[in-house]
C-alpha cells in the first residue's frame, strides 16, 4: 500500500522549472531512496512533500491526506531531517529534543521521557546536558535525527543523512535508519552515496534535470540493466593463448582477460559452469574461484542517467563548501 503518492508534481521558480511533472509512490514500511546530481530537484521535491515549498502543479497524497491542502495535518505524522543539522546552538541536547517534542503538542513528562529515551538510543545520554554547539558533527547529525523522530512519525524524510561526517558515525546512522525502518517507519531518503542507497534502500528513484527517469527496486534495476551474463574465473596459473582457445571452444561468448589470473566470460545466454570447468581441467588449469558478476548500482545509474558517480560526489562536495 502506498503511503506517499506523487502525481504530475511540478515546481517552477520564475523561468526555471525545477521539477517537471514527476510521479512516483512510496510503499508503507519501505526505505525509498531518491538519487540525482545537484540541482536535479531532490531537495525541491522533499520541500514540497514536507510543506516547505508549494507545488506549481500536481498532487501529493500522504497517508490518505492531501499533502498540499492539509499539510499542517500531514506534518503531525511526518518527521524531517534536513541536510544541515539545524538545532539550536544555545540549547543542550536534552533541551533541544524537549523543545522539538513540544512543537507536536506532547506533554511535559512525555517529552522529557522521550528525550531521555532517544538520547540513550543514539548513544548521547552522557552528553545530553552539553550545548548543541559543543557537539561533534556526527553527534549533531544523530541528535538532528533524534529530533526528527521525537514524535514517533509514520514517515521520516532524511536529506543526505551521512554527508560530511566520519565513517563510524555514518555507519551508526545507517544502522539507526535500518532499525527505525524495522520498527515500522517509512523512510524517504536522498543521498549522493550510491553504495549507501544500494545497502539501505528497498526501492530507488533516479531524478535528473527535474524528471524522474527510473523508479524500481534495487534488484530489478540491477537485473534490467544487465544485458549479458558474466562469470569471472580465478585461475591458479596463466596459460598462453587461453583467450583464443576459449573462443574456439565456446563460440558466441566474449572473453575479457582482466588480470594474469582472472578471466571474465560474457554471454547473452545463460552461462553453464560445468563445460567451462571441464575445459579448464582439460587444459591443466585449476579454478580457485568462479563467481557471477552482477552490475553495480553505480553502473545502473551511469547507464540510465549518463552521469558518472564521481562527478555526482564532486558536485556535492563543491556544493557543500
Amino acid at each position, binding site marked *: 500500500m502506498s503511503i506517499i503518492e506523487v502525481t504530475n508534481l511540478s515546481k517552477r521558480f520564475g523561468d526555471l522549472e525545477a521539477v517537471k511533472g514527476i510521479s512516483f509512490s512510496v510503499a508503507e514500511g519501505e526505505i525509498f531512496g531518491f538519487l540525482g546530481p545537484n540541482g536535479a530537484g531532490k531537495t525541491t521535491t522533499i520541500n514540497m512533500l514536507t*510543506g*516547505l515549498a508549494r507545488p506549481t502543479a500536481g498532487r501529493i497524497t500522504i497517508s490518505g491526506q492531501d499533502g498540499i491542502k492539509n499539510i499542517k495535518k500531514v*506534518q*503531525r505524522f511526518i518527521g524531517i531531517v534536513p541536510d544541515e543539522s*539545524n538545532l539550536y546552538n544555545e540549547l543542550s541536547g536534552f533541551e533541544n529534543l524537549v523543545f*522539538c517534542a*513540544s512543537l507536536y503538542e506532547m*506533554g511535559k513528562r512525555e517529552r522529557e521521557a522521550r528525550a531521555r529515551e532517544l538520547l540513550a538510543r543514539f548513544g548521547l545520554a552522557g552528553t545530553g546536558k552539553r550545548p548543541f554547539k559543543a557537539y561533534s558533527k556526527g553527534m549533531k547529525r544523530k541528535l538532528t535525527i533524534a529530533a526528527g523522530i521525537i514524535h514517533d512519525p509514520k514517515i521520516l524524510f532524511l536529506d543526505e543523512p551521512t554527508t560530511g561526517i566520519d565513517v563510524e558515525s555514518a555507519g551508526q546512522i545507517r544502522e539507526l535508519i535500518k532499525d527505525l525502518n524495522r520498527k515500522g517507519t517509512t523512510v524517504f531518503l536522498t543521498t549522493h552515496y550510491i553504495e549507501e542507497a544500494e545497502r539501505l534502500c528497498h526501492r530507488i528513484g533516479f531524478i535528473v534535470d527535474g524528471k524522474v527517469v527510473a523508479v524500481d527496486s534495487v534488484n530489478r534495476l540491477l537485473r534490467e540493466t544487465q544485458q549479458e551474463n558474466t562469470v569471472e574465473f580465478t585461475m591458479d596459473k596463466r596459460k598462453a593463448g587461453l583467450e583464443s582457445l576459449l573462443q574456439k571452444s565456446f563460440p558466441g561468448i566474449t572473453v575479457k582477460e582482466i588480470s594474469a589470473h582472472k578471466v571474465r566470460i560474457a554471454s547473452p545466454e545463460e552461462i553453464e559452469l560445468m563445460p567451462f570447468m571441464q575445459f579448464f581441467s582439460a587444459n591443466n588449469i585449476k579454478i580457485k574461484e568462479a563467481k557471477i558478476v552482477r552490475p553495480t548500482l553505480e553502473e545502473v545509474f551511469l547507464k540510465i542517467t549518463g552521469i558518472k558517480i564521481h562527478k555526482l560526489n564532486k558536485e556535492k562536495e563543491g556544493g557543500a563548501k
Partner: protein
Amino acid sequence: MSRAFWNILLKDIKTYYLKPPNISWGIIFPVSWTLMFFIRSGGAVDIRGILPGVMALSVLFGTTSMLAVTITFERRQRSFERLLVAPISLNQLMLAKTTGAIIFGVLYAFVPVLFAAFLIDLSGINWFFTFISVLLIAVTSTFLGLFVAVSVSEVFEAQTFSNFFRFPMVFLCGLFIPLHNLPVFLRPLSYLLPLTYGADMLKFSINHAGSIPVWLSILVLVAYGAGLFLFSTYNIQKKWID
C-alpha cells in the same frame, strides 16, 4: 494558544531576551537619552516632559532590534525551517515569535519610569492608559520589526533596514520636537508614521498634552499593527514557503 506557542515563546525568552546584551540594552538606552537631554539643557531637564518620548524610543529600539535575532538569525541558521514544518499555523507561529518582543518592549518602556520615580513626582499619571499606549506602541513596533526581519536575509541587513524607519521616527513623530515646530512639508510624513500616534497617547496619559483624538490614535495603531502582521505573514508564505 497551543502548547507549541508557549514553548516557542519560552524558548525565545530563555535563549535571547534574558541574555545580558538585551537586558543592558533596555537599561542603557533610556539612561543615555535622558543624560543627553540633561547635558543639553544644562541640568534643568524637564524629566516629565521628555518621559513619553524616552519611553516610546525604548520600546521602538528594543522591539525592532530583537526581531532581527529571533527571526532573521534563526532563518539564516535554518532552525526557523524546523518551526515552519511543525504542525502549528503560521499565524500562531509568528505570534509566538513576536510575543516575547512585545512583553520585553513593554518592560523596557517602564525602565525610564522607574528612574524618573526617584527624581520627580509622578502623581497624576493615568497608569492604565499609559500601559495601553505602551502596549500598542510595543505591538506596532514589534510588527514593524517583523516586517523588516522577513524582508531581508541577513542580520546586518535587518539592522540597517530598521534604521531607515527608526531614526526618522525619532525626529518626525513628535517625541522631542513638537509636531507644530516641524517644517510644514514634513508634517504629512509625521502623520504617516505610527509612532506619532503612540507618542501622542503617552503625552496625553502622562502630561495631559495630546493633540490627536485618542480613539483615532488607537484606531491607527491597531490598523498599523494588523496590517504589518498580515503583510509579514503573506511575505513569509510567498518568500519562504514558495
